[in-house]
């Protein structure tokens, strides 16, 4: 019943629950890879294109899972009697947060790994062991603001609205962030706002592994979004606490 045991128990319960909903898990995992297969595979003839396309779609995969796992998951669960019951257990609220974060990270990395696997099999990728390691590290760091973005959606949007809202944020930001079409080919308006979007800077961070880029700038913008969404998420969380447990 120490905190580590509790986090483990709650993580296991969440993963078991996920494992038994293949109708949700398989499409969620396969969706980014499907996009990758349709929009990137046919053009990935050179190592340079294959590398950058794979990185883009891995970012796309991680963003999707975090927005859906947190945004839709929290919005659906926060009103449930089960959550209310869990409040009566001797369990600090942070335990559920950490467990949920761990689950979403594992799930997001699995979705990204599937993209990598398909890219590795069907394209002339050029990645060495060090670059794979760097990729895992960057994927973790770059995923943080999206976790908080998801939590923000979860606490500010109702359960019914969470799915469309998460979808719109996911698809629009991925497109305008240059994750489907390389940024230099984006249409006018999207091209203008693109550098300010977290999706674009997440892409820039990952692309920098294989091409010269502005890692520092990407990290600064992502850090700013981290602070922004952390503030929004915590206000949303407190607002929910106040109304639900007042």
């Amino acid at each position: 019943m120490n905190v580590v045991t509790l986090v483990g128990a709650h993580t296991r319960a969440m993963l078991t629950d996920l494992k038994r909903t293949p109708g949700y898990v398989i499409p969620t995992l396969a969706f980014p890879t499907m996009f990758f297969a349709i929009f990137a595979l046919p053009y990935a003839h050179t190592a340079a294109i294959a590398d950058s396309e794979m990185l883009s779609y891995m970012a796309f995969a991680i963003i999707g899972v975090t927005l859906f796992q947190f945004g839709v998951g929290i919005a659906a669960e926060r009103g449930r009697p089960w959550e209310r019951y869990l409040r009566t257990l001797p369990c600090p609220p942070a335990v559920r947060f950490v467990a949920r974060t761990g689950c979403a990270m594992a799930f997001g990395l699995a979705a990204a790994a599937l993209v990598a696997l398909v890219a590795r099999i069907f394209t002339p990728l050029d990645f060495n062991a060090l670059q794979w390691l760097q990729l895992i590290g960057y994927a973790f760091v770059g995923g943080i603001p999206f976790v908080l973005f998801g939590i923000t959606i979860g606490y500010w949007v109702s359960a019914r609205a969470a799915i469309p809202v998460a979808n719109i944020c996911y698809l629009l930001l991925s497109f305008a962030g240059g994750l489907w079409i390389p940024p230099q080919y984006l249409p006018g308006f999207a091209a203008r706002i693109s550098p300010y979007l977290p999706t674009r800077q997440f892409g820039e961070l990952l692309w920098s592994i294989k091409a010269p880029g502005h890692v520092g700038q990407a990290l600064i913008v992502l850090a700013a979004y981290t602070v922004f969404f952390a503030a929004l998420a915590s206000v949303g969380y407190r607002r929910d606490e106040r109304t639900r447990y007042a």
Partner: protein
Amino acid sequence: MTYLELRDVRKNFGKVEALRGVSLTIGGGEIVALLGPNGAGKTTSLEIGLGLRSADAGNATLFGSSPRDVATRRRLGVTPQHSGFPDNLQVREVARLVAVHYPHPAGIDAALTAAGLEDLAKRRIGTLSGGEQRRVSVALAFVGNPDLVVLDEPTTGVDLQARRRLWDQIARYAVDGRSILFTTHYLEEAEALATRIVVIDRGIVKFDGAPAILRARFGMRRLSYVGDPLPPIPALVASVDRVDGRTIVTTGDTDAYVRALIAAQEPFAELEIGVSSLEEAFLTMTGETT
């Protein structure tokens, strides 16, 4: 030691005064039944005691500290009023998840067997009937082996056999200083189990004491005889029925009715006077009529 204490707790929801100064203390080794009509404030009182809501005024403590303290809640086991479990988890998986939070949990198998759930242990909760889910909820309140078990309507929608089993479980559990607080709609349940009954009505505590005292203080008595009823007696509240030639009078003062019967020189036979049930006491107290 005081396990749960509410001191002059007030709570408004908008303009509705849900609690108008509720005071309640639960100590070790007690079985307390919390009774009251729907909307009387039972659930709100419990929620404040469990830290799910905060009081507008007054004070709520659990084992002497805030109900929201994690350490305090290690001594508390609660059953949710509505089930709403994660449908995909098995009964024993949920029981294990709950047990992990407690320092000295009961064995999972023992806890499930005590609730008659051993055959359902590997079933997913979503596939259980409403009554079965209710029994899972109750089992979860006991699984941590806590000092205070709080059961919110534990037998609603449960079959007779399961209800009897739970009564046994409650009676066996409340030893060695462990206490149980339960709400119920069934007065027979309160009468059969509780060492103390607390009645809440319209946001205040109407009664707090042993079941026998409740019956004696608020109990109506029942008088019946073969013969005709008297015309209504001024200043005596009574309900009068006639069944198969017998007149049945329910009133707080049977003596006055008997004196009036004799004074009226009305012929009567086979006079019987008895105590009415707690149910009737309860209805008298909360101002409802049968």
